[in-house]
């Protein structure tokens, strides 16, 4: 350990250092008079602070508790407001983490969906004849639920112009996957910004405990 160790002395004195760093501090202390002096000063300060007595002449505990009991007797619990409930739900660790996880999972599912449809589209392209006719024959051969009717979806999506899933070519697929990748990168950037404070805290903890 090079140089002095003032920055670690408080943590050393408070027994907050990880064993390796603690050992390094102790090694340094054996050979550095300045740091020894500083440590002795810090130690003397802690001893001095403990000489200040606690509060004296207080009410007995039972009387204090009884007085608090009287105070709370007329006061019900405050119910959290809708805003507080919503805030708690939004910023609760579990729901927040699930919320953050939902985005990449959604993007992954969208990617899988696009790949599947693109694969299906390629297979259909290998079959001679117009795809719509094949789909029509499929839907006429066996009744399918409205929502599972590929013609319905294909027709609806055709209404969006180029977004006809069953007629996608490699360029459309590439564009869609590129868009998903961009969305993922945007999410990643947001997540990094959101967790910046946590990372900074982790760095501080690592610095404190000497972990890399």
């Amino acid at each position, binding site marked *: 350990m090079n140089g002095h160790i003032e920055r670690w002395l408080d943590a050393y004195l408070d027994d907050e250092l990880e064993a390796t760093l603690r050992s390094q501090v102790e090694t340094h202390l054996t050979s550095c008079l300045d740091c020894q002096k500083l440590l002795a000063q810090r130690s003397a300060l802690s001893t001095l602070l403990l000489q200040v007595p606690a509060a004296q002449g207080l009410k007995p505990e039972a009387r204090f508790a009884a007085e608090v009991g009287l105070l709370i007797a007329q006061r019900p619990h405050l*119910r959290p407001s809708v805003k507080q409930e919503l805030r708690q739900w939004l910023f609760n660790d579990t729901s927040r983490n699930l919320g953050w996880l939902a985005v990449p999972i959604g993007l992954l599912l969208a990617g899988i969906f696009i790949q599947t449809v693109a694969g299906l589209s390629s297979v259909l392209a290998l079959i001679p004849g117009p795809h719509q006719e094949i789909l029509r024959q499929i839907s006429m051969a066996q009744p399918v639920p409205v929502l599972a009717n590929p013609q319905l979806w294909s027709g609806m999506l055709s209404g969006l112009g180029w977004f006809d899933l069953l007629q996608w070519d490699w360029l459309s697929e590439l564009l869609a996957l590129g868009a998903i990748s961009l969305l993922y990168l945007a999410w990643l950037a947001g997540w990094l910004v959101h967790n910046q404070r946590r990372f900074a805290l982790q760095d501080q903890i690592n610095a404190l405990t000497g972990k890399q």
Partner: protein
Amino acid sequence: MNQAVAIEETDLLTQAQQGDRAAFGELVCRYHSRVINIVYRLCADASLAEDAAQVAFLNAWQRLAQFRPTAAQGSFRNWLYRIAVNAALDILRREKVQVNIEQMPLAAPGAGLDASLEQQELIRQVRQAIIALPEASRVVLVLKEYEGLSYREIAETLEIPLGTVMSRLNYARNQLAMRLRSVMEVV
């Protein structure tokens, strides 16, 4: 033993959250001395400390339904300490209390005649130095030196980053070491 106490505290907390005042009274008894100690160290006035502690427990009762022992809010103890610290600082600010160190009792009433004048003067100077610290640093110092909380627990209690705990504590100790240099040399 500790686990048994912890489980019992959880039960008390659950009952208190359901409106059981007796359960809350038991929690008050358990934390009475620790809460009083924190607020007393912050305001250096026993009477004011009792008032602040009562406000803290009242606030805790009213907000009890909102308490969840999550990673964000921490344990009940840390949650209560946070309320106590805020209550003490609010009272100090609202009433603009100017704690007169000169008029503080020099020694505890029970200290008897054996307590030397030098010792009393030393305690007065230390109290004065602590009270002179900025609120933010004083709170961290009190939680560390008098309550023995770890850095992580202090960070959780005050909802501040660990690095801030370290810097505030370092600042407080440097200030105290500077102000009490002459005292420490004598000791």
